[in-house]
């Protein structure tokens, strides 16, 4: 399938989701849907570095919070439309992603992961001590109940949901383009064997920097509208462990070697969490993540997508 065809289909599915949510007509659908979409973007972003290149990033929360706090910063400074904030968040997180990559990519395996975790701690400390963005008290973001575009009035949460839907489509299309391009081959060689990759002429350091920048930028984009969604942003919620854990667990459950893995994982795990939040308690979330992760590591180490692909390959070999 060509990229254009894929983009059209993805956009059409996105539009269908939007129409369905509108037809459903309950605000809760937007609230719950927003969270799931946000995790699709986050886990897709994580997968660009973690799945394609094999570098496990524990610092998702740092990039997400950076996007969120960049919005708070601009809100205090000069209120801008959210799409602009998303771009600014992407630029900020992308730059930090590049910097982190430059400083840490000579580390391999667990050492790289520890460095990313440290980044989250450093940034959180910085934000807690920065009064302009609310410090440890947190910051309130006020938004109108409805967004007026000309004569049309849209419920604000519907607007946020739509933005996140667009971001999701962009993230998925980008991930798929990468996967099928020369860049994708390069990323896969880094995951498999960096020494052999260099011997084949792959500029591994440059590719890893592209991956950390792109991955960071998408995480920042996912974070930028967050203060508007939650209304009150504080460091503990922006830097929450959930983001790091979920954005690793979702691609693992869905499958890390394809764009579709994070999508499946985020829908499965995200929906289960939303369901548990409503029916049992929000504290069960991390328990669900843990149990599902353990289950999938045993049953399907390559995720749901890997499981299906393996079956398909076997069947084709038999016939």
């Amino acid at each position, binding site marked *: 399938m060509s990229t254009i065809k894929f983009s059209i289909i993805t956009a059409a599915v996105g539009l269908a989701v939007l129409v369905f949510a509108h037809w459903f007509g309950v605000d809760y659908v937007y609230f719950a849907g927003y969270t799931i979409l946000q995790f699709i973007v986050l886990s897709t972003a994580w997968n660009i570095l973690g799945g394609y290149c094999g570098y496990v990033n524990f610092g998702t929360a740092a990039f997400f919070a950076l996007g969120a706090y960049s919005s708070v910063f601009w809100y205090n400074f000069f209120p801008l439309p959210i799409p602009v904030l998303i771009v600014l968040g992407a630029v900020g997180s992308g730059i930090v992603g590049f910097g982190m990559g430059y400083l840490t990519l000579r580390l391999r395996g667990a050492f790289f992961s520890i460095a990313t975790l440290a980044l989250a701690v450093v940034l959180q400390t910085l934000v807690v001590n920065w009064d302009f963005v609310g410090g440890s008290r947190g910051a309130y973001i006020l938004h109108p109940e409805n967004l007026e575009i000309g004569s049309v009035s849209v419920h604000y949460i519907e607007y946020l949901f739509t933005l996140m839907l667009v971001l999701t489509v962009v993230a998925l299309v980008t991930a798929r383009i990468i996967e099928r391009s*020369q860049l994708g*081959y*390069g990323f*896969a*060689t880094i*995951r*498999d*064997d960096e*020494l*052999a*990759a*260099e*011997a*084949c*002429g*792959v*500029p*591994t*350091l440059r590719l890893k920097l592209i991956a950390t920048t792109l991955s960071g930028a998408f995480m920042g984009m996912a974070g930028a509208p967050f203060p508007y969604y939650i209304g009150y942003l504080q460091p503990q919620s922006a830097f929450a462990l959930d983001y790091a854990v979920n954005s690793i667990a979702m691609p693992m459950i869905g499958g890390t*070697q394809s764009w579709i893995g994070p999508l499946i994982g985020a829908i499965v795990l995200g929906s289960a969490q939303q369901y548990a939040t409503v029916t049992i308690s929000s504290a069960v979330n991390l328990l669900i993540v843990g149990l599902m992760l353990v289950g999938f590591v045993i049953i399907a180490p390559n995720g749901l997508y890997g499981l299906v692909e393996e079956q398909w390959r076997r069947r084709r070999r038999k016939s």
Partner: protein
Amino acid sequence: MTALLHVDNISKRFGGFVALDGINLEVQPGERLGLIGPNGSGKSTLVNCICGTLQNETGNVLFDGRTMDGLAAHQRTHQGLARSFQLPRPFHSMSLADNLRVPLLYTVHARPGQLRTPADVEARCGELLTMVGLASKAKQRPRDLTQVEMRKLELARAMAAEPKLLIADESMAGLSHSEIEDILSLLMELNGRGITIILIEHIMSAVMKFSQRLAVLVSGKKVADGKPEDVVRDPEVVRAYLGQ
């Protein structure tokens, strides 16, 4: 004739251990050079210094008239230096065809006017796989291969970058007699196409058959360099291999 590869007084140490101690080596275009030495004599370290995996501390490497010092491994590959690894290091998650596609895309495609369309790349992949006799397994993964097939894939991948100089690091270790013949004839064929080859090997029958010239490393020093028949009779080489 100017040398294709000129290694000038290279030294490399790991902590207090001197792995290479002032190595000089010249390789002429189109030559087949055998490089031998006991285990731990520094053969692989020399290859790593020539190819940029390791950086030598003193001396320099000139390849094709250009200095290679400070260049990363991938830049040297772009200049026409290719190597195969002692233990095959295929890209496990990719099919054999994709394994070859990587150097084609990243090295050959990067040179102006070459492999412009995906169909060109596809065709070249096919040619390379046919050359090493793996065409029927193009869609399989490296884990489905036998040891000798893995070595062939390793050589095909090095060849895919269209090098001027190929360094084959122990590509026959652990193979049976007929398999060694297989690899040897493959290397001879490549040399026939004008590619200069450095063969690092422990299997003396193969080295003697293949090499036009033989260089011997012992404890990080080059102790002999010359015609194979003369070199194997050199008292210092005999001492290194058999003891006194």
